[in-house]
């Protein structure tokens, strides 16, 4: 059924602020530089007696920066991908009241409950739309003790 399929987001409404992107990439670059410095210092002075606090601070700052930038980028991407109206497929059930033949198909414009449709292939009696509904597969529900 193509009538009830979702639509994707438009480019005009989903743009991200270029300032945010700039800040994220500068932070990312600085964090990577901090990580490189930290690695170099550790490599150079890794002897007993040398104070490596500076390297550890740089390492922590670098990891923190990379983590924050990655989180912001993933969040932005997730928000953009959410910009769509998704409607799950709607099904129409058609039944023959005489011989009980049941047929489930995608909803078509013009269908309504209690509408008489095409004749039954088995007994040639008129078939009736008995149900129109959508089935939603729910995610695993969070368990509450109440």
């Amino acid at each position, binding site marked *: 059924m193509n009538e009830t399929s979702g639509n994707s987001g438009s480019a005009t409404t989903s743009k991200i602020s270029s300032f945010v992107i700039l800040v994220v990439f500068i932070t990312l670059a600085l964090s990577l530089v901090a990580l490189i410095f930290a690695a170099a210092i550790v490599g150079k002075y890794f002897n007993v007696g040398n104070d490596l606090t500076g390297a550890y601070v*740089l390492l922590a700052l670098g990891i923190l920066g990379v983590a924050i930038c990655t989180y912001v980028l993933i969040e932005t991407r997730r928000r953009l991908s959410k910009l769509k109206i998704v409607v799950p497929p709607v099904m129409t059930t058609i039944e023959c009241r005489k011989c009980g033949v049941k047929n489930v198909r995608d909803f078509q414009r013009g269908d309504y409950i209690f509408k008489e449709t095409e004749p039954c292939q088995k007994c040639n009696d008129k078939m009736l739309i008995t149900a129109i509904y*959508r089935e939603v597969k729910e995610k695993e529900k969070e368990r509450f003790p109440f």
Partner: protein
Amino acid sequence: MTLLGAQTKLGQFGSSDWSWVLNILFYVIFIVFIFYGQRIQMYVMLREVEVSLYKLKFIKEEGRKIAIETIKEIGKPQTDPTEKVDRFLEYFTIGPQNLDPAGIVLKLEHILDVRDTRFKDEVKSMAPASDETQVNNLENTLEAASALNFIYKVIRHYYLLGKKTLSLYVIMQIQMILPLVMREAEAYASAEKAFAYGQPIGDGAGALVAGKLMHGYETRKIAKDCVVATVPYDGRTAFVIKAEGPGGNVGKPGDAIKAVIEENEGKIAMVVMIDAALKLEGEELGEVAEGVGAAIGGPGVDQYKIEETLVKYHIPINAVVIKEDVGDAVSPLRKEEFDSADKVLVRVKQVVMEKTKEGDKVIIAGIGNTIGIGQ
């Protein structure tokens, strides 16, 4: 300074030097947060509202697009309906003055009738090739698009007002209700698609039950957009009422119930109303509950008329409701809601059997938007 030089200098920094740097950094952050904490919090809130506003704009634009495309597809207009649709989206209704509340319900009814006629005329002029069912569906589609447009404009108003005044309280109140507003907007977006295709919606659960009861029996028009069927019901006579389907409308069940009661000179043993009701979080979708009173939503005109008539003739009223949330109420009918219709039929039968005797007359009214549901 070369990269190697920088590394060397950083490497020569002792732990006491670093603790100084970190101490100063901590104090700077502390002082900044003392003076600018609220402002930073405000910018974070504004950003959150802005992101939602982008989403609302997208939903609103999609809604408008769906409405225009549906009108073009069904109504086959000679000219482009875009301008008329845009005008429709800006329509407003002014409620009656309530300084003197006497007679306000009838004034409200009059305004709603005028609004309904005006909307139908507009839709007919936009979509000349559409039949009555399609006009009703298109009207519902446009109303959903109009609701989305209104939500977007209100949120935008508070966002811009907050930005202009930099008032934390203006921004805070809109940010706090934003999750609920977004839920409602998403529900309307989903509803618009259902209206455009003529699919039954969750709100029509009551009409579905009535349709199941009256299917196969002769129906007649009893009030505006409402039909009634006389159905034998285990030794009783049931007058089953619902809005006339399959077009999207709720009819005037207040007038319909009043008309049936007056036709029978008040000799009605009981009225049972069936409707969809908002569920609380934690309740199951499609849960069936029973109670007393007029189960009907809307602006209150129909509830008033039903209660007036029932008081006049001393008729008891019972209600059976199907629980669903606001999103499900305006989205295409879910399987759980559809399956509940059979459970409601059992409950209604129980109520009628327990509270009436053989030969009695009862009214069973299925309330709700009957889009996609015939009779």
